[in-house]
């Protein structure tokens, strides 16, 4: 594991237990080739397995991992930590959709 780390503020919301969304801060290993999606997967595997987010292809084809990164809509898989390091990164669900849970939005109006 890399010795360098970076912090992410991730918006959490679990409708069964949270009255409103809140920010949770995580510290993850930093490497130059790591994407925002990979950092979320690191969080899910090692820090908090209850974090929910959509993803599928990991190669900027499917669009599943669309999310707000520092207020800008991005694909998590083609957005790299190196473009923000060493500053903290804010990750939120896509704007203008209702939040279903954490970074997952209700897509019904999209189709």
């Amino acid at each position, binding site marked *: 594991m890399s010795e360098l780390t970076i912090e992410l503020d991730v918006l959490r919301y*679990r*409708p*069964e*237990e949270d009255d409103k969304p809140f920010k949770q801060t995580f510290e993850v290993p930093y490497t130059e080739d790591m994407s925002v999606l990979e950092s979320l997967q690191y969080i*899910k*595997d*090692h820090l908090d*397995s*209850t974090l*929910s*987010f959509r993803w599928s292809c990991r190669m900027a084809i499917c669009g599943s991992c669309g999310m707000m990164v520092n207020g800008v809509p991005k694909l998590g898989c083609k957005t790299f930590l190196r473009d923000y390091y060493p500053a903290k990164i804010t990750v939120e669900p896509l704007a203008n959709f209702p939040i*279903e*849970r*954490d970074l*997952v939005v209700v897509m019904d109006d999209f189709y």
Partner: protein
Amino acid sequence: MPGLYAIGECASIGLHGANRLGSNSLTELAVFGQLAGQEAANYAREQTHIESSVLEVQAADIIRRTEALLHNDGSEKMADIRQEMGDSMEEGVGIYRTKESMQKTIDKLAELKERYKNIQINDKSSVFNTEFLYALELGYLLDTAEAMAHSAILREESRGSHQRIDGFEQRDDSNFLKHSLAFYRAGQAPKIDYSPVTITKSQPAERVYGAAATQQAAAQEEAK
């Protein structure tokens, strides 16, 4: 099961031979997906509803098993099992394989399946619970990995992406021109059986690269 249609690679229609090359899976979707959809619609139009109580009993059993998994209060870390499975498959059942490497992976998969029974799921939510989803997927991944490893170790030849480097480097059509079938057995390794291959236009052939490919093309040209 009458009326059950499969689309995609799980349908195993035999289009790709022994090595499905990158992106060729699109054919399954665009061509055979459409056919399967049309056939399913035709089938549905011609059938009347059958007694569904048998299916409901099976569905209830699946719900019971998955609920038990969700609430099993285990301690094994899911990410560890998934990572170890991937590493072991890469190491033992990658493109180049030996009996020894495959056996090592088979043993590892048996260990991981045991540990899977005691898996830890922290998220008990019923809203977009991806941890639970990953847990279900991991169970099926282990089943699929076992089907691959047990099929591969019995195939004493090289074909497609199955390359034995322990004395079985050649394709052996007399013994192994057949589909491997893995049958799920609860609590034990899958049973491996075979079915015949129907060959129509494309005969099995060696895929060659570089200078060997030039030679092969020249030989084909000469034979014309």
